[in-house]
Structure formats: C-alpha cells, structure tokens
C-alpha cells in the first residue's frame, strides 16, 4: 500500500471492515510511516469530535409542535380550497369575467370625469376598512420594519417587483405582530411586494436608487411613480393602495417634496422624515 493512498482506507479501517490483506498492509504503514500514523490519528480525533455532537442536547423550541400543526392545517385548507376551485372553477371564471367588464366600464366613465387632476396634498383618504391584514411601517436607525397583524394564521410573502422573485415567506400567528425588517442600503432601486398569500392584500415598498441627473419619468404605473419619487426624495416610499399597477401621469412642478401634479387624485401622500407613504 502506497502511503499517499492510505487515506482512502481510513474509514474502512476505522470501521474494521478492511479485508485482512489490506488491513495488515495498512497496519504496516501505521507502524512504519509516522506521517500516515499522525494523519490517521487526526482523522480519528475528528470523528471523535463529530461523535461528540450526538451527546450535546439540542434545545427544541417549545412551539415547534404547534408550528408544524399550523403548517399542516394550512396545507389541508389549501387542498380543500383547490378541490372547491376545481368544482366551481368555470362558474367563478364567468363571475370574474363579468366583474372585470364592470371594472373596465367604470374606468372609462372615471376617465371622462372633468375632476381628474390635482395636487398630492389635496387628496387625503383613509385606509380600506376591515382588512384581514393590518400593515404598518416604522423606521429606526435606517432599518425599516413592516408590521403585519392578521386575524388568522397567514403566510406573508415578500416578492421583488416586477420580476416576481420570491425573497422570503413567513407564517403569522393570529393577532400577533409579525415584523419584517429591511435595510434600505442593501435594497437600492428595488421594489418589494409584501402580500398575504391567502388574503392577497399587499403593500409595496419602493427603495430609492442613487440620485441621477437624468430626466425623471413622468408616466407609468403608480408603482413606477413610487420608485421615481423614492429616488427624487431619497427615502423609501411605502405604497398602501388597492392597485399600484394602475397607469398615472405626474409632473414635478417645483423643488418641494410635494410639488407634484397628477392625472388622478385617488391617493394621499404622507411625508415622514425617513419615508413617504402613498395610500388610498
């Protein structure tokens, strides 16, 4: 047995499973080659060290059982829902089609109303009532914390927009706040959607890019406006509206933060020192 090949047999020798011929060759090496002997001693010591881990108790979280059962409840519920969807899918599609038609018609009527246009300050509105998920945002030392409180256990997903990349998901506990923390520095120019998977209620956060001398956009979706605005004011914009993908036009009319004109006035702009909030 060549000394440089000895390591191939360490495990088999350690487990006493080397055939007798190889075993005696290996033992000759151990006796006559100090380098191999030392190397094998290190090998055995490393196995002792990992065996030691088996003796170290692992602290099992007290809520592990509940967590597992909650996830299973959720999976069972989703399965039931998908079965229901199978039965009523066609009927639901018809209804959705009808609702979409009504929505388009309403949109056409709204676009023809003469009241379109106005400034951001003039358009304060409340948050939609009775949300199944209550989102709020706060900032401390550059860390933005989104707090989500749900009436029922809910999976909250964080998805990068518009790519749709899932960044993370977390299960909430009914009535208990779930905190999602973000560091703006690491998210320059990104927009994240934070959504309840079951409930589909969502909020968005647009993080600013580095300042640019390029002419800012003046048209796009509300989400794109938020991104442009975030870069202009160099602070994150928190979007809490029903439809951030709706198209709007805007024009910056001065150097003030709220010196902006819009083609619609269905949302308010609330300026905080660390962030801005847009909401219906």
């Amino acid at each position: 047995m060549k000394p440089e090949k000895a390591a191939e047999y360490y495990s088999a020798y350690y487990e006493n499973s080397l055939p007798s011929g190889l075993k005696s060759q290996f033992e000759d090496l151990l006796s006559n080659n100090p380098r191999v002997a030392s190397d094998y001693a290190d090998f055995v010591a490393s196995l002792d060290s990992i065996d030691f881990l088996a003796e170290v108790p692992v602290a099992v979280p007290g809520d592990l059982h509940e967590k597992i059962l909650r996830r299973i409840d959720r999976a069972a519920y989703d399965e039931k829902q998908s079965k229901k969807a199978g039965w009523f899918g066609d009927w639901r599609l018809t209804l959705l089609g009808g609702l979409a038609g009504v929505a388009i018609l309403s949109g056409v009527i709204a676009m023809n109303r003469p009241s379109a246009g106005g400034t951001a300050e003039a358009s304060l509105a409340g948050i939609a009532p009775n949300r199944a998920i209550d989102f709020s945002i706060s900032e401390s030392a550059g860390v933005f914390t989104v707090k989500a409180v749900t009436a029922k256990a809910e999976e909250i997903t964080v998805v990068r927009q518009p790519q749709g990349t899932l960044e993370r998901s977390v299960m909430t506990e009914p009535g208990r706040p779930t905190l999602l923390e973000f560091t703006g520095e690491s998210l320059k120019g990104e927009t994240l959607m934070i959504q309840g998977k079951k409930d589909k209620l969502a909020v968005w956060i647009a993080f600013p890019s580095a300042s640019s001398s390029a002419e800012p956009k003046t048209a796009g979706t509300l989400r794109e406006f938020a991104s442009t605005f975030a870069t202009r004011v160099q602070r994150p914009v928190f979007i809490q509206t029903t439809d951030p993908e709706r198209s709007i036009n805007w024009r910056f009319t001065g150097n003030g933060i709220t010196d902006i004109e819009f083609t619609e006035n269905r949302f308010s702009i609330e300026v905080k020192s660390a962030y801005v909030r847009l909401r219906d």
Partner: protein
Amino acid sequence: MSTSASDDLVLIDRAREGDRTAFDDLVSRYEKRAFQYAYRLTANTDEASDVVADAFVRVYNALKNFKGQSAFGTWLYRIITNCYLDAKKKEKNKQAVSLDSAVVTDTGGEVERQFESDADGPDTLMERSERERLVQNALLKLPEYQRAMLIMYHVQNLAYEEIAEALDLPIGTVKSRMNRARLSLRELLNKDMELFQV
C-alpha cells in the same frame, strides 16, 4: 429514528384514512429527532424549525404514496434533507438582497424554549460549548450532501443502509463519499485538533 416500525404503520394507516389525531401522534413521535437533525444541518433554530415544518407538510401530502418499503423514519430523513437542500437553493438565489429575518414577537416576550438540564460545572460547559461550536462551524463549511451524510451517521446514528435509502444512493457510493466527507472534516478541524485530544 428508531421507534417501533409496527406502531408507525398503524398510525400511518389511520392517518391515511383521515385520522388527524394519528398524524399528530406521528409528528409528536418524530419531531424532536427531526429537529435535532435539521438543527445540525442549519445551526439555526428558526431555519431548522422551518425545515422540519415544511418536511412534515410534505409528509402529510405524500402519506398516501408511502409504500412502507423503507422505515418511516428513513423516509422522513430523506424529506428533511430535500427540504433543507431546497431552502439552501432559495437562500442562494436571494443572497443579492439582504432581507433580515422575520421576527415573530410575543408582545415583547421571547419564545419559550425547552432546555435539557446539564449538571456539568461552568468550565466543562464552556469547553463543551466551544467544542460544539468548532465542530458545528466545520460542518457548515462542508458541501451540503457531505454534511447531511456525516450528521446522519455520527450524530443521528443511522446505519449505512438507512443513509443510502434516505439519500437514494447505492451503499458503496455512500461509503466512499463518507470517507471523503470525513477527510474534509478532518482538514477543517485540523488546526483546532489539540482541543479534542483527551
């Protein structure tokens, strides 16, 4: 995961017929060892909890397909390993954006944890803790499959046959890869080896 296989099969049969209590019993029976395995893979309590919870959801969804050709415990190890590898893939994909972990608060209180009592003195405890940390850190530097294999064998005390079933590999492959994994671990631990010489 050595519990009575016949008891497992009874619980599995009942769970397949929709007996939720039977499934909950199956969870109770295996959750602690499942968590220990996941914790040694991740070295993180929250990640380990997520991996275990995901694994049991997969078990729940796939229970009707469980043929009983391998022990339930071995099958569970396979599922936990897959959940862990999937989680690592997701983590690698999102590393460009640093999102801090979500924290579930309990109105200011910490999540209650169960600790087993340890009667050793402070010096021994410190040494044990340092030794655990060094070994765990070395494990984390290994490729995921090597790590899983070493933990299954040395920490969870699985036989080669069980590891081969859990990883869906021929037993000869498991043995040769195990040797490579041990050699890699030896390299990583080498500089701290004097700590373990007793």
